[in-house]
């Protein structure tokens, strides 16, 4: 399987003003291609949650999107730290470490990671003090 569309993005820590811009671009690009709405909705929700996580919890990071010729889409969210100390807790619905500042802006309801996993076809997470990498897979066709 070969990647037929590749896109790179960077997000910056605490850049709330631009929060969601990458997800908007991913959504707009896939919508232009003509990805079915049911798949697109899952990708939109997962990419938005993951992007926001990088902005409020991590020190920014890189996002890549690949569309493969076999009809799958892979999104990779890679941040440089600080890592998730207790992954099991982070995967529990309702558990959150978001700051009051973030909560006041409507982020940090503690549904982030469980939600991302729920809407993704494949979900893979690796975390250490050196950073977290989340790889999400979606099947389009």
């Amino acid at each position: 399987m070969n990647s037929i569309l590749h896109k790179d993005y960077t997000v910056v820590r605490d850049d709330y003003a631009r929060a969601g811009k990458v997800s908007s671009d991913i959504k707009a690009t896939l919508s232009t291609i003509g990805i079915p709405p049911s798949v697109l909705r899952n990708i939109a929700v997962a990419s938005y949650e993951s992007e926001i996580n990088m902005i409020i919890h991590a020190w920014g990071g890189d996002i890549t999107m690949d569309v493969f010729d076999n009809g799958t889409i892979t999104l990779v969210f890679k941040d440089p730290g600080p890592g998730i100390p207790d992954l099991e807790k982070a995967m529990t619905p309702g558990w959150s470490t978001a700051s009051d500042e973030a909560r006041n802006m409507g982020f940090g309801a503690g549904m982030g990671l469980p939600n991302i996993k729920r809407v993704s076809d494949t979900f893979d997470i690796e975390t250490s003090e050196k950073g977290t990498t989340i790889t999400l897979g979606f099947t389009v066709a």
Partner: protein
Amino acid sequence: MEKKTVVSYTLEHCVRCMRCVQMCPTSALSMIDDKVIINDGKCLNCGRCIRACHSKGLLASGSSIDAIRDYDYTVCLVPSAMISSCRSLDEAENLFFAVKELGFDEVVDITDVEGRVMKETRFLSEHEEGQTIISSMCPVINRLIEERYPMLIDNIAPLNYPSEIAAKQIRKKYQDKGKLGIFYCCECEAKLPLAKYPYNNMEYEVDHALAIVDIFPMIRENLDKGRIPVTFCREGLQSCNPTMMIQTQSDLIADGYDKINDILDMTEFGLLDSFKILHLFPCFNGCIGGHLLWGNSYLTKNNIDALTYKWRKAPADLIFEDMYTNDFNKTDDDPRSFMEKMTFFQKVNEQLEKLPGYDCSACGMQTCRIMAEEIVKGTRKVDDCHIIHSMREKGK
């Protein structure tokens, strides 16, 4: 089914300002050989292009009132947006008399049906667990979601338009009146296609859609000649106006085109899941800001209290079959395979690289991307781009 747009192009010579082309929310307009071409399948009937044109070149009209003569018994439906233009109950009674004088046998206000649709929307929002319901009263919102936010189609309340429900009731009531003609006064362009005529949408129960601005000069002549007693449903009158609507913690009410686009974007990301109902109005001040009305919506929005201070009507009792519809369950009808879509997308991107990317519309297409799509389809050439063409001329 693809419906014909209500907008028609009327100019002999266009100044090619491209305002209409650039204003279109779904890129339905393009200019080919100095003529504006409207893609019926994409058009929302929102009327933004009509208002963008400085030369009155685009037009949406309703049926002629003369159609009354084709029927044995005629009924005129008056929506809340038209009633809201009255400052008092006295003025409303004068209005109903003047409308009847146009030649109708009966004039019916549909505020009780609108009120019931509002209540039913709330009922749905309380019983659909975890699902945000989008009010389906505005045809532009429904079409906008179908075209630009297909992920949200399932969130649209599966309810008929109030005019349609009211027409069904009237048809049942007057089965013995011979040839029954139901006319509907429309406050905006988007409601004109909700009738059999003039746009040949034969699936509707309403026979003719009338543009209120067209009949208003005739109504005005009879405004002080008499009155018909009326009572209105408060919930119905509120339904046309975002500032007067009863709002609970779980309602989101917004008006204005840019704002509703923001809201639909956020809804797609799942950010507004805590809201149970979205009432969205593309027009400022909602339906009383409809462009086929004569009143100033900033002045008329407070009239609702005056119209319902004394007598009120309860929302109508309606049966399930009349209220519910599944018109909005549009599935993905793109017959192309994933690889065909991808190949087209990449070919378009290749052409897009060659274009300047100013989205100036000088070529007649709204954006460079749409131009690139046309080049791939073979209807346009790269040299049709005015900027590339003039650079090439300079180079010679």
